Structure formats: C-alpha cells, structure tokens
C-alpha cells in the first residue's frame, strides 16, 4: 500500500482486505463505484450485461480494503464488499499483524479510511 505520508503507527495497523462482489446484471453502468474506489480496484468492463450496460470488473484483485464505498454509492444494490477470508489475504509479512489486537488508534484509522 502506498502512502502520501507514512503514518507513524503503520506497523501497528491492520489494513483490512476485502472481496468485491458484483451482481453484474443489476448494474446500470453509472460508474460511481469505479470512479470513487479509493484503491482503484475496479474498472468498467468491455462486456455487456443483460441490460446492455458495462458492469465493473475487478482489476486489482487483493487491493480491496473492504471500505464499502462502492457498496454505499451504488444506486442499484449491485456491488458490495465482504472481508476477505484470512488465509487468502494474509501473506507472510503481514501474518504477525493479524494477531494484533485492534487498538483505539486503529479504529480511528479505519474510520479515516472509510470517510468519503
């Protein structure tokens, strides 16, 4: 993860990981989710859904921080994210962090991530 300025407590923070779920035939191609995904996880696809719109696809799999912004913005109830299963998202370097108890600071950080 890139930071404009590295947080002092970066080593204590758990960066959540999420899976994006797209219900593509519900999509009307407004592009809100693609535009506002803070991690650039999504892109409009070339594919048409049954209504003839281009639904989003996940292009940066593993980058999702499960912030739910796509889910909140989507007017069609067509996309949402869920926490990624632990075994898939936690690589060796981050493994030690997974056991760190959530601190007050961490919660603040999460809220900051979630702020639109």
């Amino acid at each position, binding site marked *: 993860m890139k930071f404009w300025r590295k947080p002092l407590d970066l080593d204590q923070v758990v960066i959540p990981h999420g899976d994006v*779920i797209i*219900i*593509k035939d519900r999509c009307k191609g407004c592009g809100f989710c693609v535009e506002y995904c803070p991690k650039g996880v999504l892109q409009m696809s070339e594919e048409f859904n049954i209504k003839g719109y281009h639904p989003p696809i996940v292009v940066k799999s593993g980058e999702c921080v499960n912030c739910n912004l796509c889910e*909140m913005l989507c*007017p069609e*109830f067509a996309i949402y994210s869920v926490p990624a299963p632990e075994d898939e998202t936690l690589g060796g370097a981050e493994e030690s962090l997974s056991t760190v108890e959530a601190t007050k600071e961490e919660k603040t950080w999460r809220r900051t991530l979630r702020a*639109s």
Partner: protein
Amino acid sequence: MSKVIDRPEVAKEQHPVAPLLRMDRIPHIWCPGCGIGTVVKCFATALQETEVDLNKLAIVSGIGCSGRAAGYMKLDGFHTTHGRAIPFATGLKLARPELKVVVFSGDGDLAGIGGNHLIHSARRNQDLMVILVNNFNYAMTGGQNAPTTPTPAKTSTMPYGNFEHPFNVPHLVASCGASYVARWTSLHVRRMTKSFKEALNRKGFRFIEVVTPCATLYARLNKLGLGLDLMRFYHQESEIRNGADTRDVAIGYQSKIICGKFVDEDRPSYLETMHEYYRKVLGDKYVPTPPEGGMLREQN
C-alpha cells in the same frame, strides 16, 4: 479472490441491505446515474446500524421518482398521493405514536405541491423524519421546473432557463422550527448515513435534504453530462459547513453546495408538547392515545 457473481438469486440474498429491500421488485425503475438508489442504500444501512425495531417503522412516500422509495423497502410502506406524504405520515404517527415514521420523497413532491404541509409540519415540530431527495426538477413527469430549480437552469417548462427564485429548503424548514436540519449530496454516503442514524433517534421534525443527480433530465437539459459528471461536480463544489447559518446555504446554478448538519436542537416535539400541555391543563383527566394506537379491541 475478488469475484463477479453470475448467479443473481444467490447474490440477492447476500447483499448487505437485501433483508431491508423488496428484492422481488429489484431492479428498480430509477435511471442509470440517478442517485436515489444511493440514498435508499444509505437509509437502509442507517436502519441496520441503529437497530431500530423494523416492525415499528413506517416509510411514507408521495409521488415522483423518489416517491417510489417506499415501494422498494421491506417495511410498512405507503406510496400515497402527490404532495401528501407528510400529512399521511402525520395521521400514522398520531394514531399510533409508538411508530417511527419516515417520509421519503422528492423536492417537487415535498416542497412544491406539498410545500404547505412541509412548513406546517416543521412549525409543529411534528414527530417525523423527512428525507427530501432534491434533483432540482420534476423528473418523473419529464424534467419540469421545480420549486428548487436554480436560476437559470433549463427545465422542460422553462426551456429558456428558469427565472423563478428557488426555495432554500433547509432555511425554510429551519425557520419554521424543525429541530434537526441537514443537507448532503448523494456523494456524501458516510455523512448522510450518519445523519440518518442521528435523525432516527431524535424526536420532532427531522429534515435531511440530499442533492442527487438526475442524469436523464436535469443534467441532459442543461448539458451537464452524466450522473457521474454531477457526482464529480459535487466532489469539487460541495463544502461541508456544519452549523452553518441556513440563510447562507441557498443553492445556485452549478454553484457551491453547502452541506452539513445545520440544526440539531433539543426542542420539544409535537407529541411532547401536546402531552405536557394537556397534562398541565387537564391533570388526571387527560387520557392520551396509547402508544399502540386508539384501535378498539374486543373485551375478553
């Protein structure tokens, strides 16, 4: 890892707000790029996060695009007549005071044809939560001029541009006495949801205006691009000023949109005032309508 679900019937059940929606009516009728669905999502999320008793919550809509919201939510949902959502909701609330009653409707419906009800309900500080989705025009009927249309935006009945002065709705309801007044755009999903959560747990007249894109009509008639372009505009031109004087929050054409929580006062609500007053003047003789309503029941 990340996935695209191709089996809608499975995904339907999994969407976090699915339990609050009438999934048998989704997809809804709103246009691509319209923001009403976003407001519904945020409201549903607020309901989930506040854990209000959904059995005791009613949603009332008037007519128009936003008026369809009551039909998509799995609540006691009332889709009423044009402009009359607030008085209808008033009847529901007063006849069964334990209900939480939310009015979800549009700017034309609530501030235009229903404008009289809006101001009087705010004046009484009636125990209603009102979500006004403002897309600056009468969209369902084809983009006609609304009481919120900024000057000189074009509408289908002001083809040369609107010359009428629009309402500054937060100021209108605040000056009438509403106890909670906020405005967000449909881009401010977190703050909007937070406002909904706060308002759900307040008494009195709680008013939240949400500025949303109308891509099909308002944006097209004014060559403002797609819904996404309007969202980008909100991103650039909205300014959060909590506690702002509502006199300063009028919305001009493509001007800055002042957002925030403007009013949050602990004023006695209509029901509180009524109960307190009757108790004072009638004493023990006062028999209030029971919380579960004044319905006659068979005596056992």
